[in-house]
Each structure stands twice: as structure tokens, then as C-alpha cells.
């Protein structure tokens, strides 16, 4: 970047448009995330928040516009390539590998940055053995991030055994195992009780301070948004309606209107 003070630009969406038939879910959207930031994406249901994630991770291809990650164009790349470049996400609807163990869930996500081939694995050649050790250590390290929640005997439990909150944590651990620079968290606090939500707020802060990740998070819980965000972006009908610090966005009449309708704004 030209200004020396500014941290480097990590993710940048420029005039991104995506529509399904007549429904425009992203309309000339501009969005950027700087390295080391925690940015929240808010908006009422159907505002196009998850669509932004799907566009960034390559599940959707934008109709027009550019998506760049550290200066590299992401449009047209398959999702696994985008993840290998350093963007990992969680799913709002939870898409764990249910019939695999907790540890295997995390280990599986290390696929993108390991290289051992099938013959190497079959004959247990040195590189395969070394990578296996590294993957196991990596999984344990990522799971340890959640303290006692995903520790000990839970490593060998099948993922379907976990409680709802723990499944959300496991999704984050799995995303971390892809060694990303940018984490996209899709409603990480959904379905959590107030105590767990508080714990999550603290966790997202630690993701940046200890993990070194940049975080873009979709969240409905305004306490979480207030607690974690450097910057808040509000969407409605695929259009960015407000951007800035939490207080500014939360009091923006257009945001209140989007959430509550015209009556609320009046």
C-alpha cells in the first residue's frame, strides 16, 4: 500500500455482483479487510452475508467484479485452491465430517499444505511419516486452543458426539488447521447460551492476538459484534448500507431501518 502506516490489504472485493435469476444477492459490493483486523458483517436475514463468504471461498462465481487476496485474483479458482492460498471458513449450518473423530476432522483439513503421495503413504516412506507426525501435532495444537472444551478423550470421539457449541468450536479448529491468514466465521455464536457466547467473544480476540489470524465474521448477536469488531459492515439486499465503528453503524438510520423497517427508524 502507498501509505506506510496502513497495514497491508488482505482481502478486497471490488464492485462484486452476483444474482440468481432476478434476485441480486450481491450488488456492486466493495469490501476490504486489512491484515490483523477483525471485521464484522451484519445485516438482516437474507441480506447476502453468507453469499459474500461463498463468493470469497469460490463456491459461487461472481457475475462481475473482482475479488483479490493479497493482490491475487480469486475469481474462477476452485474452492480448495482458495483455501490453500490462505482463506478458511466455517459454515453457518455446521458441516463437520460427522462420522470421523474430532482429531481426524482437524487432521483432514491439513491436506492442502501436505504433500505425501499415495505410494509414499502405502510404503510409509520418510516424508509420509514425518508429515503424519506434523499433522497430528498441528491438530493437537489447534484443539488445545479451546482449552478443556476439546481436550483429552474428546480427540477420539466421533464428531456427532459433540454438543452443538463444541461442534462450532471444532469447525473453527478445523478451519485453523488449513493454516489460513484470513478466517471467515459464519455465525459462530448461533445456538450458544450467554456464557458460551461470552467465551466465544474472548476466543475471537485470542484468534487474532495468539493465533495471528485476520477475522471476518458474520454475527447476529450485537453483544459479540460490539465486543470484537474493529470495523462493522452492514449489508441489506446485497448492498452495503453502512460501514465503520460499531457505534456509528449501530446508530445509522439505514441500518435501523433495514432491521426494524421504516417505523423503527421514525
Amino acid at each position, binding site marked *: 500500500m502507498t501509505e506506510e502506516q496502513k497495514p497491508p490489504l488482505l482481502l478486497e472485493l471490488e464492485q462484486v455482483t452476483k444474482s440468481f435469476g432476478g434476485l441480486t444477492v450481491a450488488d456492486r459490493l466493495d469490501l476490504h479487510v486489512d491484515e490483523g483486523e477483525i471485521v464484522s458483517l451484519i445485516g438482516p436475514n437474507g441480506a447476502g452475508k453468507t453469499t459474500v463468504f461463498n463468493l470469497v*471461498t469460490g*463456491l459461487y462465481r461472481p457475475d462481475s467484479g473482482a475479488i483479490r487476496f493479497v493482490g491475487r485474483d480469486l475469481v474462477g479458482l*476452485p*474452492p*480448495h485452491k482458495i*483455501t*490453500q492460498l490462505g482463506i*478458511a*471458513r466455517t*459454515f453457518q449450518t455446521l*458441516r*463437520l*465430517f*460427522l*462420522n*470421523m473423530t474430532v482429531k*481426524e*476432522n482437524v*487432521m*483432514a*483439513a*491439513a*491436506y*492442502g*499444505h*501436505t504433500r*505425501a503421495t*499415495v505410494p509414499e*503413504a*502405502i*510404503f*510409509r516412506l520418510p516424508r*509420509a511419516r514425518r*508429515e*503424519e507426525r506434523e*499433522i497430528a501435532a498441528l491438530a493437537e495444537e489447534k484443539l488445545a486452543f479451546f482449552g*478443556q472444551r476439546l481436550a483429552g478423550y*474428546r480427540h477420539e470421539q*466421533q464428531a*456427532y*458426539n*459433540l*454438543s*452443538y457449541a463444541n461442534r462450532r468450536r471444532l469447525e473453527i479448529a*478445523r*478451519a485453523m*488447521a*488449513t493454516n489460513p491468514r484470513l478466517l471467515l466465521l459464519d455465525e459462530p455464536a448461533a445456538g450458544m447460551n450467554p456464557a458460551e457466547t461470552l467465551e466465544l467473544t474472548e476466543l475471537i480476540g485470542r484468534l487474532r492476538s495468539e493465533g495471528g489470524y485476520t477475522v471476518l465474521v458474520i454475527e447476529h448477536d450485537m453483544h459479540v459484534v460490539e465486543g470484537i469488531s474493529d470495523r462493522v459492515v452492514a449489508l441489506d439486499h446485497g448492498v452495503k448500507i453502512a460501514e465503520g465503528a460499531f457505534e456509528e453503524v449501530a446508530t445509522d438510520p439505514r441500518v435501523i431501518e433495514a432491521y426494524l423497517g421504516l417505523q423503527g427508524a421514525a
Partner: protein
Amino acid sequence: MQTGGDIPEVPGRPDERDRPRVGVDEWVASVEGRREDRVGFARLGRRIDALLPPWARLLIFGVFAATLPLWMDRGDLFAYGIFTLIYILLGLGLNVVVGYAGLLDLGYVALFGFGAYFYALLSSEHYGIHWPSAVSIPVVVVSTALLGLVLGIPSRRLLGDYLAIVTLFFGQAFVVFVNAANPTVRGKGLTGGPNGIADIDPNDLFGYELTTRRQQYWFILGVVLLVLIGLHFLSESRTGRAWRALREDPLAAEAMSMPVNRLKLKAFAFGAGIAGLAGCIFAAVLTAVTSGNFALPILITIYAVVILGGIGSLTGVVIGAIVINVSFQFLAPENPQDNARILFYAVVILLLVLAVRPWWMLGVVLGGVVVFGFAAHAIAEAIDPSWTAGAVVEGGRLAGVISDWVIIPAGHERFANVAYITLIVAVLALTRIHGWWRTILLVPTLYLTAIVWETSFVEQPAVARWILFGALLVTLMTVRPQGLLGTPRVEIV
């Protein structure tokens, strides 16, 4: 015990917070496991999987299998030993595609056939080509893997049932091609049409031809053990985990940095390679191949091996292959009918053991059936001796008991039909009534089952074989839907 019914407080445990509690979804998820634990032998299966480490299981299987030829005669070694090993190999290949990657491939048997035919072309009198196994087997395995890759291409776009239909078509097309197309190459039908290809060379170990059954058996056992070890390592590698991940959720796998399409093709090619290897061995052992060897029934049997053993489990495939091939060969038409009879009564008793609770009730029912039988027999004989004058078909060890217990009239064709229809009515009635009446009706129904078996099925061994085989599968799969050593698959809604 405390007085007055007040319950002593359970001392708090350090891990109290993490223990499953009633109403928590974790508790719900563990219900299935605990229900299963109550069924005795299913629990044993879980224990085998949990307590014995993989190498110990491999050692037990290896030692047992290696000593088989020392006490088995040649014919049995061929039917029980070699065929079981070939089924294991086929099951292992299919397990990669279906069990790991979750791709429903119904064309698998054609890859097995392709391997067998290709080996036959490379090492037989058909074209006078006699490549040594050290050359022909690798060539066949690699070619079959490539064919599997081609067959896998539709899997990039098709899922589930749609993939099954496309691959099934491929399997059928292979049989038709081999049988009917039979293109002329070098003045000779390529596949030999309905006659197939004969005079295939045996496998050889660097020039040493394996001609006796024992040598062949040990050779195949060695191959199976190597494949098992390799697959175990592969399953615990990044590729194995990625296959299972894409089986669970392809979209999440793709988003978690796994190239799903390439992994699917890899699974197809890898499974196909193993099928090709099995084909080489099969052709060499049989010394002849025809298209009938690779038709739908074989495919179903391979699927039965994998599903019965527990999809995704290597130990399961081995046990599934043993159970299926041994029971199938045990029931072979050339074996005495008594085999089928013993298995039949064993299946009936097994079903009762599983279905009737509590234990003393089982005793009442079994005792009741025995007493009921002898009483009915005595009454029938007293009324008219010709009612019980029929001969027991190939009675074998049980002949004496059966002729005193089951009513077999002298000329019994009509009697058999009536008994058969009555049995169907009785079974239907059993499903409609409950409680004591059911137990009481169960006794004559079981006796009727014995009559139907002794008067109808015993006389049609070929039919009885398939019915019994089916009954065995249905029974086992009802008891353990996830297969003998499989883990129950859970979907969360």
C-alpha cells in the same frame, strides 16, 4: 442400602461437566451404542475392533490363514481358502471406492473382469503370449486403474443414484461386449465369446510356476496381507482421511483444501487397480475365464462382503468375505444336503435367540416346539401310519431325530404346498398379534417351518441355497445394520 429410600449423594467427579447428561445431544448419540451393547455377540464384535490393535488382528488372521493348507484337503482349500482370499481382495478394492470415498460404483465387477481377461490375453494359449506374472500383473493392474479412472470421470458430475446407474450400465456393457461383440483380432475372437478364454498360465513367482493349490493359496495370501497392510497405512494417511471427509461432506471437504474431484478419481483408480489384481489371480487360478464370472450376482456378492463386514472397515471386509464365502461354499450343491439343513436350523435358532426375550421365554419356546413336534408326530402316526411314512431326504446326522419329529407323509407334494401356504399365513398372523398369544402361536409356526423345510426346500437344493443365503444376510443386517465391524453412521438433523 440407606434407610427410608433417601439416595446418597454421588460424589462429584472432576470431569462431571464433560459427562453425557440426559437430554444433551451427546447422550442421545450414545443411546444407540448402549442399546447395541445389550446384544451379546455384537458387543463382541465391537470389542474385537476396540481391544485388538490392527497388527494383532493381522497377525491372528495371517497365522490362522497360513496354517489352513496344513489340515485342509485340496478341494476344500480351493473352495474355502482361495475363493475367500479372492473375495477379500475384491472387497478391499470396493471398500476404497464405496467405504472410504462413498461413491456408489456398480461397475466394479467389470473392472475385475477386465483384469481377468487382460491377464488371460497376456498369459495364455489364446494368442500364444506367455508373459511372466512379474510383467503381466503390473501391466494389468495399471491398465485397470486407468480404466477405473475413465469410469470415474462421470463421478465428477454425478452423485449417488445417478452415478450408480451410469456405472451399472458400464458393468452390463462389459458383459455384453465380452460375450457378443468379441471383435476379431489377429484372426481370432478377442474375448472368445461365450466360450471365454481357456488355458491361462498360472501365476509365477519370478519364473517359478505356482501349480499346486497350496502354492497358489500361499501366494494369494501373501498378496492379500500386503494389500491389507498397504491399505491400513493409506487409510491413516492424508489421502485416506480426505476420502472419508469427502464421503461425509464433499462441499466441506472442498472448502477445507481437499481437491474433491481429483480425490474421487484417485479412489476409483485405486479400487480398480485392486480389482485388476484380483482379476489376474482369479484368471490364473481358474485357468479359464468366461463372461458369466463377472455378471451381476458376483457384484452383489462383493457388495454383500463389504456391507456385511461393515463399510469402511478393513477387518470387516476380511470377516465379511469369510462369512459369505464359507457359508456359500458350505451350501454348494455338491455338498451333502445336511449342510444346508444344519445351517437352516442354526439360522432359525439364532433368530430366536436374538428376538425372544427374556431368556426363560426362549427355553419355553424351544422346549415347546420340541414337545409339540413329538406330540403332533405321535398323533398323526396313531391316526394313519402313512401320514408319517415319508422318507427324510439325505438325513445325514439328523435323520433319526427328524423322521421321529417332523410329519412327512408318504406322497407329500400336496401336503407340502398346503404346509407352505399355512406357514405364510401363520407368519403374517404373528406380525399382527402380541403378548402371550404370539408366544403360543410361535410354537406351531416354528414346527410348520421345519415341516416346510423338510418337505419342500430340501428337495430343491439350488433354490434353498439362495434362500438360506438371503435369510442369513437379512438376519445379520437386521441385527447389525452397520455390518459386523462397522461403526453406526449417524446423521444429525
